[in-house]
C-alpha cells in the first residue's frame, strides 16, 4: 500500500519553503546524511541589512573584493569579483534570481548613489525565476559575482562601495568596504 502524505501543500506554502532552504538533517530510508548544519536564508540575506545591524567581521568569512569601476553615460558600472582567502572551499551566494547575490551600496563624498537596476549578464537559460545560486569557490580562488550600475555625476573620481556578501555557514552577511578610483568610460 502506498502512503500518501496528507499534509496541506499549496503553491504558496511550497514557495515559502523553497525560499528558506531545508535543514540538512533529512534522512530517507538507508541513506544517512553527513552534515546536519542548519541552512541560511539566501533571499533575505541578499537584501541590504539595517544600518543598525552589526555585520560579521570580514575575517569571519575571509574574502577579498576586486572592483572594476568604469564610467558610462549617466553613471558608473561596477563589476565585482571575490577571492576566497580561506584554506577551505566555501559556498558563496552569487545570484538570487536575475540579481547578483551581494547587496551593494555606492557613495561619492559620503552621498549615496541611486542604483540602476539592469542586468547585462547572459545565463544559460532565458528565464531563471527567483532561485538563489550558490557558487562553490575553492580555497584561494576568485569568483566573478556580477555587475552593478549607479547614477553618478560625470566628475565623480572616487567611489566607496559597500558589499554585503552571504557565505553559507557564516553567522551573518559579511560587509566589505572598498574605495575605488573611477576608470575610463567603458569601451573607450
Amino acid at each position, binding site marked *: 500500500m502506498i502512503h500518501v502524505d496528507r499534509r496541506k501543500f499549496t503553491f504558496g506554502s511550497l*514557495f515559502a519553503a523553497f525560499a528558506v*532552504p531545508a535543514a540538512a538533517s533529512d534522512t530517507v530510508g538507508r541513506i544517512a546524511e553527513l552534515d546536519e548544519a542548519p541552512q541560511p536564508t539566501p533571499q533575505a540575506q541578499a537584501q541590504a541589512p539595517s544600518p543598525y545591524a552589526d555585520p560579521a567581521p570580514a575575517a569571519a568569512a575571509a574574502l577579498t573584493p576586486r572592483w572594476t569601476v568604469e564610467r558610462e553615460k549617466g553613471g558608473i558600472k561596477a563589476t565585482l569579483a571575490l577571492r576566497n582567502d580561506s584554506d577551505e572551499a566555501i559556498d558563496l551566494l552569487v545570484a538570487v534570481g536575475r540579481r547578483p547575490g551581494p547587496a551593494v551600496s555606492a557613495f561619492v563624498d559620503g552621498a549615496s548613489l541611486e542604483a540602476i537596476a539592469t542586468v547585462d549578464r547572459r*545565463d544559460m537559460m532565458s*528565464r*531563471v*525565476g527567483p*532561485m*538563489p545560486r550558490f557558487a*562553490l569557490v575553492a580555497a584561494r580562488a576568485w569568483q566573478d559575482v556580477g555587475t552593478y550600475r549607479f547614477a553618478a555625476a560625470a566628475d565623480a573620481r572616487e567611489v566607496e562601495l559597500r558589499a554585503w556578501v552571504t557565505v553559507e555557514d557564516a553567522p551573518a552577511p559579511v560587509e566589505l568596504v572598498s574605495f575605488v578610483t573611477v576608470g575610463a568610460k567603458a569601451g573607450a
Partner: protein
Amino acid sequence: MIGVRPLAAAERAALVDGLVDGAAAELVDVDGRPLGEVSSAAYDPATTEIAACPYADRRRGEPMNLTALAQLSGCWRALLGTVAALAGPSPTVHRAWWVATTCIAAPLVGPRPVPVELAALYKTALGLSQATAALLLADDGVADVPLVALGDEDAFFAFLDDGEWLFGQVQVCAGSGPQIRQMYAALAGLGAPVGGVGPAFAALPGGPEIGAVGVEVVGLQAAYLTATRRAVRAGRAEGLDGSPAERWLQTPPPWLRALVAVPNRPIAHVLRLFPAGGAPPRVARFLTDVAERPERDAGDLGRAFAEAVAALAVRGPERA
C-alpha cells in the same frame, strides 16, 4: 496511443547524451531559430522582434521575444493537447515534472531541423521543468500530491508572478496570463482541451518511453551533481577538472537549478523528485552507493555517473 514504435538503441543513446550535454538548446528548428532562443550561441537579434511586455502583471514593460511568442501561438492547441495527453487524469506533481521533462527531451529524438511544434513544446516546458522541480524539492511528499491540490489556475499564475518566475536575465516569458493558465489546466488534468496530441509529437518514436529515459537521466544528473558538490566541499575534488559536474557547478542546466539553489543539499533530496518508493532503480542504487562509500572523490563519482548513463543508453530504464 502516443509513440509510433519503441525507441531504437541509437535514439535512446542520443536522448541520454543530449540531456547530459544540454544539446537541445542548440538544435535549430524549421524556421532557423535555435530552441534555446536568447540562451543559445546561435541566437540572432536581427531575426527576433523584441517588444515591451504589455501584460498587466510584474512583467509589464520588460523586453519580451515576440517572434518566439508567435511560434508558440501558431501551434498552441497542439501544445495543450500534447501536455494534457501526457499528463493524463489526476496527475501528481511528479507527473507534471515528468511531462515537462518529456517535452524537453522530445526534440532530441525527432527529425532535423526540429518541427516548430516540438521547438515550441521545448520552450514552454523548460520553464515548467524549473518550477515543478522547485516544488518537488521544497519538501518530502510533494511528488505524490495531485497537482491540482496545490491550487487552481489563478493560484498557479500568482505563484509564478509573485515569485518572478517569469523573469529571465534578459527577457521575460512572452506567454500571456490566459495562456499560462490554459497550460496549467492541461498539465493538471483540468478538463480535456479540444484536439489531441500534436502531430509532430505523435510521429515521434518512444512516446512515454522518452519521459521514462528523461527523468532517469535527470535523476542521475541530480544525484551525481549533489554528491560531487558535497565531495568537493569536503576537500575531495580530485578528478573534477573537465567533468560534467565541474561545468554544472558553474552553470547548472535549467532543470537542475532548483537542486543547487540550496548549498550542500542533502543527497537524499534527490528522491523528492520521484513518488515514494518510485525512484528509478539506477538512481536509488547511485544514492545508496554514495551513502555507503562517502570517501569517494569527484573523479570516482564522475566514473559512476558515466557508467550509469551508459547502462541506461544501452539497456533502457529498469523496472522498479
